[in-house]
């Protein structure tokens, strides 16, 4: 009953309470924001500082050595024999972009097949996709490695890109999306107009599925961009012109003769720029996408 009394105190008390609460929540949110940003901020700051400053003092104020550090990365043989940010970004872009395109297209196609048509194996096919959705990459890694050796596909981008044609989780997501928001009548109408099945998919279905495609595309892109594990299994010999951004960063942090922390920070900094930019530009989509997907990778 005491609760009742507080409520009856009147609008003023309630308002103050809400205000105090909001303020406290705000404080907590700011603290969390700082927790998220400070490590990244230190990275950015240290990327602009010289080695000697970095190892003598912690600072939160950017300095002026960013270009010196970049020059070190470019000119020092310790780095430039494998660290080439433009090349790394291009390679990552090829892999992530290729995966992204294949994933959304073929997942859309598969989901379309499962939703639009009736066929005998439809049920079993869907159950199969559900069942394999949860198989961890690591479980198949040994067999995958073995397969690559046999097929002579090590050090090739094929096993990095082509497998993304089959992405069970994304098929599942697209299927759910189609079931809930795709009007099947439209297909019927297209058939009457004489459109063939594949064209119907391309010209009618894809435009209608745009939101789902966009969200999954962004996710697939970021996930593949960051997928160090598979890349390290496939690109075993680490050839310079094949290295991806995460692999270059991994190499930078494991050089054991590097005297220059500034250059190391700058390398990490350069590696996160593309994803952060993509993220900030498309953040609305992404946040919406996580909410819609509800599936953690």
């Amino acid at each position: 009953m005491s609760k009742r009394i507080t409520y009856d105190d009147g609008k003023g008390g309630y308002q103050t309470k809400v205000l105090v609460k909001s303020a406290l929540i705000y404080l907590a949110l700011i603290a969390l924001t700082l927790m998220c940003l400070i490590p990244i901020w230190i990275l950015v700051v240290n990327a602009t500082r010289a080695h000697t400053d970095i190892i003598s003092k912690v600072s939160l104020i950017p300095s002026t050595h960013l270009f010196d550090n970049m020059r070190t990365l470019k000119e020092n043989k310790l780095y430039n024999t494998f660290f080439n940010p433009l090349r790394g970004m291009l390679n990552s872009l090829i892999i992530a972009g290729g995966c992204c395109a294949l994933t959304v297209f073929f997942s859309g196609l598969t989901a379309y097949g499962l939703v639009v048509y009736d066929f005998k194996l439809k049920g079993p096919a869907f159950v199969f996709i559900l069942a394999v959705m949860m198989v961890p990459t690591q479980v198949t890694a040994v067999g995958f490695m073995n397969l690559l050796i046999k097929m002579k596909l090590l050090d090739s981008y094929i096993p990095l890109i082509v497998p993304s044609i089959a992405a069970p989780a994304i098929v599942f997501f697209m299927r759910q999306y189609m079931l809930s928001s795709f009007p099947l009548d439209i297909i019927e109408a297209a058939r009457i107009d004489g459109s063939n099945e594949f064209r119907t998919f391309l010209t009618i279905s894809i435009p209608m599925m745009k939101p789902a495609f966009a969200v999954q595309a962004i996710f697939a892109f970021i996930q593949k961009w960051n997928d160090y594990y598979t890349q390290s299994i496939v690109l075993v010999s680490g050839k310079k012109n094949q290295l991806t951004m995460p692999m270059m960063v991994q190499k930078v942090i494991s050089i054991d003769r590097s005297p220059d922390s500034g250059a190391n920070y700058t390398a990490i900094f350069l590696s996160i720029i593309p994803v952060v930019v993509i993220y900030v530009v498309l953040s609305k989509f992404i946040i919406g996408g996580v909410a819609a997907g509800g599936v953690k990778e």
Partner: protein
Amino acid sequence: MATTAQSRIKSVSYAKYGYIFILPFFIVYSIFSLWPLIQTFILAFHSNGARTDLDFVGLENFKTILATPAENDFKAMGIHETFWRYMKNTVIIWVGNFIPQIALSLLLAVWFTDLRVKMPGKGFFKVVMYMPNIITAASVAGLFLSLFGDSSYSVINMLRGCSDPAKNVEPLKIISSVWGARILVMFIQVWMWFGNTMIMLMSGIQGINESLFEAAEIDGANSRQTFWKITFPLLKTIMVYTLLTSMIGGLQMFDIPFMLHTGNVINENIATVAVFVYQMFHANFAKPSFGYSAAASVILFIITSILGALVFWVQRDKDAMEKAKKRRQAIKEAKRRAKGGGFTI
């Protein structure tokens, strides 16, 4: 006219298109995922120490990994203990990151969806909190190594004055201490994933009928009551789902535990089962231990399958129906209470 066209269309069988459309998926999946999976199972029953010409050894690899080894069999002891140590790490790190993560995410999700708290800048906070999730794990590992490294010259130790020998401050050895490293990995995992979990939970909360919250508010329920009486019970399903997917994700944890060390030797206090799988087939190029690696993968697969089955059990239709029923009941209840005008406890 239309009816004849329609009937003509109906008489055409489109079943073959169904097969054609799903064919690419199944072909590629079979080659790059299913075949490797089968290969992994086959390798799990074969010997170690070579790339080709492996002997069939039955359950030997599983025995070595799982069973208590003989007194002086150092090899079995080594493999057995490494596997279990890594398994223990996996569980500890997962539990240690999941509990704070879900608590924090839930709290935030509730705040962000609380109708009463008017919050400008909500979007900004969400964007920032999700940000750590998009950064490459290699970069995150490198960053945290330089922040919390063992050296006197890592950020944390410099703040404590270790970089000045005159002060003679012993550096904190977080990475090489057992719990220091584990807690750091837990922290990194929370740091990377709480934004993601928060947004998922938010979508769950937003899925709850808004009139429920409105009714509760009219009733004068305070935030705590709203949370425990409405949000939490209705969120149970999605919470269980989050729990299980996170468990499966936790079993796969690889990047951070693998990269968070200096020097050649992987940090055995934070190495996970996924690291074991990788180490076994990578340690020696000419003589990889495919057998142990594959056997560990199969064990991982079995655990995952059980957890996966649980996910589907929780997500099954019956449950959804029950949920809908509960929701309807809750609304009715709330309306009844709203009419009654009292919120008695």
